[in-house]
């Protein structure tokens, strides 16, 4: 146990780095995912095809492979590169974006066509239909799966620790190597920090899911 308290500072800085990865990776994934989802549901065929290809491509490639590209391949191609932390955020954001896009798309497609038809038939325009009828219904269906995507992202930030980013997993590995007699408390202690993020998020998702479930 003492190892945890003696290295509290190190663990805390690892935790902060994990939070930073989660925040910036999540924001990037949101932006990219929103863009791809918009393309995917647009009436323009070529944009739809591109968005589908993007989703299939990045959903079927392991995160570790993207990290391998960012950390070992990219430095051979360009002279000036940002630090590993930024590369890790880019990798996490690209990997997560198709999952965000799919959550958004299935939310919008989950709204029955009749809702939009009813809106149009009483004379609402495209913007009004979207903002007053479709989006309010889609958003409540989107939020729980979206939170699940971010829970997965939280856990995926640990991969960055295998590629020179000093976050929680990296801290755990370093501490465990330095204190061979206290491996169990170190790893369980670090796991608790991950649970500190994922369990509350899971509870929020379950709560919202219960609250916004619409009986149709």
């Amino acid at each position, binding site marked *: 146990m003492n190892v945890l308290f003696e290295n509290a500072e190190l663990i805390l800085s690892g935790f902060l780095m994990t939070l930073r990865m989660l925040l910036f990776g999540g924001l990037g994934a949101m932006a990219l995912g929103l863009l791809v989802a918009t393309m995917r549901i647009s009436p323009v065929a070529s944009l739809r095809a591109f968005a589908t290809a993007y989703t299939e491509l990045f959903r079927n490639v392991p995160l570790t492979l993207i990290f391998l590209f960012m950390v070992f391949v990219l430095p051979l191609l*360009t002279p000036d590169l940002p630090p590993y932390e930024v590369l890790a955020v880019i990798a996490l954001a690209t990997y997560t974006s198709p999952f965000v896009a799919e959550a958004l798309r299935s939310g919008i497609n989950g709204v029955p066509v009749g809702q939009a038809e009813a809106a149009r038939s009483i004379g609402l325009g495209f913007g009004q239909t979207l903002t007053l009828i479709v989006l309010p219904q889609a958003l409540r269906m989107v939020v729980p799966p979206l939170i699940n995507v971010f829970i997965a992202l939280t856990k995926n930030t640990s991969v960055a620790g295998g590629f020179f980013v000093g976050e929680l997993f990296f801290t755990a590995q370093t501490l465990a190597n330095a204190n061979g007699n206290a491996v169990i408390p170190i790893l369980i202690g670090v796991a608790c920090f991950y649970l500190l993020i994922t369990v509350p998020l899971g509870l929020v998702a379950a709560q919202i899911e219960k609250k916004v479930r619409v009986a149709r």
Partner: protein
Amino acid sequence: MTAQATVLYDAPGPKARSRSRVISVVGILGLLALLGWVIYRLAIPQIAANGAETPPILDPTRWEPLLEPQVWQLIGEGALATLGAAAVGMVGALILAVLFAFGRLSSSALIRVPVTVILEFFRGMPVLLMMLFILLVASTGAFLAVVIALVVYNGAILGEALRAGILSLNRGQREAGLSIGLTPTRTRLLIELPQAFTQMLPILMAQLVVLLKDTSLGYIVGYFELLRTIKNLSTFFGNYYMFTFWLVGAVIYLVINLAVSWLGRRAARAVAAKRA
């Protein structure tokens, strides 16, 4: 595919169709420009992060190792190691998922509460941390560490999906099973589980693809799977061939995962058609 009405827009008329065609063409041109830029970028001499200038990626000399059969033998062994860990992991995870789901739905609080706590614990932490834990604490060797962590983690997630599936069933199913004299356990196993399984098949298959991708975390804990093989080959032959080997790895992963995803979707469709 002809455009049809969706929740967002009506079936397009002639004016909207021609407009969408124009945007389509612009979009395609944009994509071609992007593709052209990528090819151009690979076809010019590369300047690395340390300032060294090397021949273009498309230079034939960069692809020479791929002519050696031994390289392909190693890559094949790596791919088999990935598939092996995934196969064992998938079977184990599905079996554990059934146990988890039954435990969480148990009528006895003595079983239900501990299983719930354990499930939440396993679901909330990274697989990678679990692999490290098993590797360091049980010193099982890398293969077992990867497989056990994948089984436990995905067993917890698949178990939750199965539980949701069982809960979504009509209550009459369970009552019918009990009323014809089956024990509660047999009702779960013979009546509820098969229906929950088919209902949740799309989610289960998606999670199995995640499991397959997560075998690549073996790279970090030192299991010699496909990615580790790729990295070792580029270390052996030199950075000059890094891009080549990485691309080979990416293509192999894509082919395997797309095939599994496709099989999963087909299975889900076939089951849905049978149920209808």
